[in-house]
C-alpha cells in the first residue's frame, strides 16, 4: 500500500466505522432473538424502575437488585449468540486495519531499535546485522543475555521499504522495516511459531521453525489520529464512531440491540 496522505487515517476510521456499524447492526438483527432481547431489556428496565417505585420497602429493593443482576446475565447471554457471528470477522478486520493504523512508519532521520530474541544465549555473540542502503547503525549491538536478546540502534536515512537481515552463525533471518509517511502496512514483529500471536501482531511470514531466532521486532511509534480536536488511538475512535453509527442504524432499521 502506498502513502495516502496525512488526513486519510481519520477518514478511513470514519468510513470503516459507518460500514461496520451498519453491517454489525444488520448481522445482530438477523442472528439474534429480537423478541427475547426486547423482553430482557424491558425486564431490566422494570427492575430498575422498581428500585425507585418501591424504595421504602427494603425487601422489594433487595429483590430488585438481585433481579437486575440476573436480568443482566440473561441479556448478555442473549447478546452472546450474535456476538459469535460477528466476533471472528470483526476481529480479523480489526487486526488487518491495526496493521495500517496502529502505528506510523519510521520517518527519515529517526533512530529506532531492532531487537532479536535468540534461543541459545551462547549464539548472541555470533549475531550480526546486515543493513540495506538507507538504514545505518548508530551504535554497537547491545547484548542482554538474561533476556536472550540482542538490540541494535539504527537510523533511517531515507524513505523506503527495507529488508534487514539478522545473521546468526550461518543463518539469515529477514525483517521488514518501513520508512516513510502516511498509511502503510507495518509489521512490528516477525515471530517463530505462535500462530495466534502471529495472527494478531505480525504481518510477516513465520520465522523458520527449527532455527535459532525466536523473534525480531522493530519499534514503530504508535499512531495518534486527530479527530474532533482530540488525539485518538484508532481503536478508541472506531469504538466511539461505530457505536454512534450502530445507534443511528439500529434506530433507523428498528433493530433491538
Amino acid at each position: 500500500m502506498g502513502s495516502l496522505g496525512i488526513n486519510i487515517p481519520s477518514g478511513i476510521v470514519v468510513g470503516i466505522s459507518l460500514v461496520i456499524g451498519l453491517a454489525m447492526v444488520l448481522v445482530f438483527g438477523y442472528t439474534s432473538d429480537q423478541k427475547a432481547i426486547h423482553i430482557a431489556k424491558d425486564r431490566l428496565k422494570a427492575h430498575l424502575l422498581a428500585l425507585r417505585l418501591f424504595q421504602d420497602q427494603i425487601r422489594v429493593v433487595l429483590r430488585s437488585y438481585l433481579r437486575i443482576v440476573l436480568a443482566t446475565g440473561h441479556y448478555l447471554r442473549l447478546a452472546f449468540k450474535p456476538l459469535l457471528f460477528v466476533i471472528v470477522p470483526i476481529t480479523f478486520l480489526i487486526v488487518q486495519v491495526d496493521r495500517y493504523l496502529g502505528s506510523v512508519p519510521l520517518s527519515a532521520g529517526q533512530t529506532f531499535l531492532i531487537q532479536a530474541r535468540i534461543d541459545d544465549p551462547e549464539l548472541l555473540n555470533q549475531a550480526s546485522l546486515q543493513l540495506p542502503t538507507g538504514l545505518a547503525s548508530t551504535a554497537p549491538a547491545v547484548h542482554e543475555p538474561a533476556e536472550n536478546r540482542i538490540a541494535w540502534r539504527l537510523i533511517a536515512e531515507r524513505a523506503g521499504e527495507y529488508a534487514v537481515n539478522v545473521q546468526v552463525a550461518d543463518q539469515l533471518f529477514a525483517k521488514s522495516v518501513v520508512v516513510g509517511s502516511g498509511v502503510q502496512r507495518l509489521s512490528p514483529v516477525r515471530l517463530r511459531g505462535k500462530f495466534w500471536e502471529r495472527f494478531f501482531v505480525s504481518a510477516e511470514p513465520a520465522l523458520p521453525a527449527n532455527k535459532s531466532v525466536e523473534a525480531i521486532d522493530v519499534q514503530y511509534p504508535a499512531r495518534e489520529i486527530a479527530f474532533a480536536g482530540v488525539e485518538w488511538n484508532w481503536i478508541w475512535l472506531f469504538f466511539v464512531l461505530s457505536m454512534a453509527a450502530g445507534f443511528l442504524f439500529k434506530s433507523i432499521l428498528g433493530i433491538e440491540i
Partner: protein
Amino acid sequence: MTFGRKVLLADRRRFAACLALLALILLCPTRSHAYAGPGAGFAVLSSFWALFVAFLYSVYAFLVWPFRQLFRLLRHRNVYAKAEIKRAVILGFDGMDPELTERFIAEGRLPNLAKLRGQGTFRKLATTYPAISPVAWSTFMTGVNPGKHNIYDFLARDLSNYLPYLSSAEIKGPNRSWKIGKYSIPLGGPKIKGMRRGIPFWHWLGEAGIFCSVLRVPVTFPPEKFSGVLLSGMCVPDLKGSQGTFCFCTTRPSNDKFREGGVRVPIERIGSSFASHIPGPENPLGGGSGDELRVRFEIRLDPAKNEARFAVDSASFTLKVGEYSEWIPLKFKAGVGFNAHGIARFYLKEIYPEVEVYVTPVNIDPGRPDLPISHPVTYSIYLEKMFGPYATLGLAEDTWALNEKVLDDEAFLAQCYANHEDRERMLFDALEKTQQGLCACVFDTTDRVQHMFWRYLDEDHPAAREVPRAERPTVIQDLYARMDELIGRVMKQIDDQTLLMIVSDHGFKSFARCVNLNAWLHHAGYLVLKPGKTESGDWFDDVDWSRTRAYTMGLNGLYLNLKGREHEGVVEPGVEAESLKNELRRKLDGLVDPASRRVGITGVFDCDAVYAGPYVDNAPDLIVGYGEGYRASWDSVMGKVTSQIFEDNLKAWSGDHCVDPRLVPGVLFCNQKISDEKPAIVDVAPTVLKLFGLALPGYLDGKAWTVGISTSRSVELSPAS
C-alpha cells in the same frame, strides 16, 4: 433421558463451546480485538449501564435508607402499632352477583368462595343509587354518598345545551397555541381535570405511611398523587379521547354507521395487496379543524394458508382468520415532535370473499403514555416493561363490537380473557411488592362478560331465542369458576396477618325489555316535541324545551327542566318542582309493561332524600329503579324520543344492573368474621381505615364494620383444592 433434557444438555454444550471460543479470542494478548463491533459494545454498555445505575442507586438507597426510616418513624411513629392487620387485600369483581354466586357455590363450582363463606363472611353488599359502576366504585373509595363525590352516572348533562359529557374527567387542549398560517402549534400539554370529588381512603393510608398498590379501580383517572402506586381503570379514554372507538376495516361496501363505539373504514385494493387506515386523535397542529391523524397499514393475503400478512409502521405480523395480533404500537404523526403513541390489537375476521379486519380502540401506550394513566407516571411504564403492553382503556373489553356483531362471542371472550390475564399478572406483582399495606385491584371481566352473555342464562331472553337451550354455552358459569380459581391463588399468597376482602359494586339482572322513558314522558305530556314531530333525534334534537317539564338521559337519572338551572328551564323551583317530582314518582312507580304485564319500574327515588353533600345540585332530580328484566332503552339513554315505550332488547348486551338498586346488591366475602348484617359498599373505606388503626374523617357516610380479627387462621385459609 427425556427429549427436553437432551435439548437442554445439547444447548448447554453449545453454550460451553461458544464460551470457550469467546474466551480463546478474548484471552489472546492484543488490544485490537477487545472490541468486536457495536453489537458487543451495546451489550456491554447496556448491561454495564444497568448495573452502574443499580449500583449508584443502591449506594444512594442504602445511604439514605436509615434517614428515610427515621423520618418515617418520626412522622408516622409506628404506624402499625394500632393496626389490627398488617395488610389488606381487596379484590373487586365488578358486577359479581350474590344470587348467582350462591347458586354456583351450591352447584360446587366455587370451592374457594365456599371456603371463604364457611370460615369468614359472605354477605350481600348494598350498592349505591344508582347501581352503576362509576358511582358505586367512587363511593367504595371515598366512603361517601354521591352527593359528596359528584359522580351520578357515566354521563352528566351540560345545562346550557342539554348535551352530555363524561362525568368523571374533562380533557381539554392546551390553553395557548402558536398560529403559523394554517397550523397551530400547541404550547403545553392537554389539561385533564378530574370531576370526581372526595378523597380515596388510600390517600389517608398513604398519609399515615402505609404503602398502597391500587390497580384498575374505576374513576381513578386522572390519577391523583398519594403515597403509593396506582394504575387508573374505568374512565381512562382511548387515544381519540373517547371511551372506546373500535375500527372495522372492510372491503364490503356499506353506508351504515355504528350507533356508537366504532367506525367503519374501507379497505382499498392496491394491486395484489390491500390497504386501509386506523383513525386516530385530532391533529394537534390543525388548530381545531377536526382533521384526524391516521396510521396506514397494508395487508397481503395468503388464501392457501387462510392468513394475511400485515405491515403497520415498522411492525409486521401474520394472522390467521379468527386470530388476534399482539398489541401493536401505533405512532400517529402530526409533525416533527408532535406524535401520539398508542397500541391496538388487530383481529382478522375474514379474507374471502371480502376482507375484514377489526382493530381495537387505540389504547394509550402504557410504555409511552401521552396522558397520565398511573401514579407515579413511571408505574404504567414499569408494568409495561415488566409484562409487555396491556390494555389501558377504561372499558377495554369491546362490548360495542359484539353488540354491532363486528366480533362474535368467541372473539369477544378471547379479548376479555387476554385483558384479564394481564391484570392477574399485575395483581400478583402488586401482592409481591405490597407485603405490608393495601393492595386493591378491580377486575372488569365479570361485568363485561355478564353484560354480554346473560342471554344464555336467561331462559327466555329475546336476544337468544334462536339458540336452543341445550346448545347455550355456560359462559357465565365458567366466568365465576375462573374468578374463584383466581381467588384461590390469591389465598395462597396471603398470611394470617392479611385481611382478604372480595367485593363487587353491584349484582346483575337480565335486560330483556327496554323502557324508553323519554317516550313515556312524551306520551304523558311532560316532554314536548316540535310541531309535526313524533320522534326526536339523539340528544333531544327536535325537543321543544319551552314546553318540556322533564327529560331523561343516561341510565337512571330523570331531570326536571328547572327554571334558572337548565338553559331553557320552565319548571319553577320550590313547590312546583316538588309537586312535579311527586307526580312523576306516583305515575312511574309500578309502571306496567303492557306486553308482559310485568312491572317495568319498581321504584323512583327522590335524590333530595338519597343524597346529601355539596354536589347534590349536580344530581338528577329522580333516580328511576327499573324492575328485573328491564332497563332504560338504548335510545332513551341517548336522549331520543321514540314512539314505542317498551320494546325487546335484541342486542348481545343482555344483562344489566342499572335497575332498582335494591334488586342488585353486590357481594362481600371476607376471610374474617364481620358481624354487621347489612353492610354497604360505602362502609368499605371506613372499615379499612379502622383496621389500620387510623382515625376516621368526620365527613364519611359509611360506618366501620366490626371485624373479628383472628391471627391463627393460616391453615384454615389455604385454598380449596
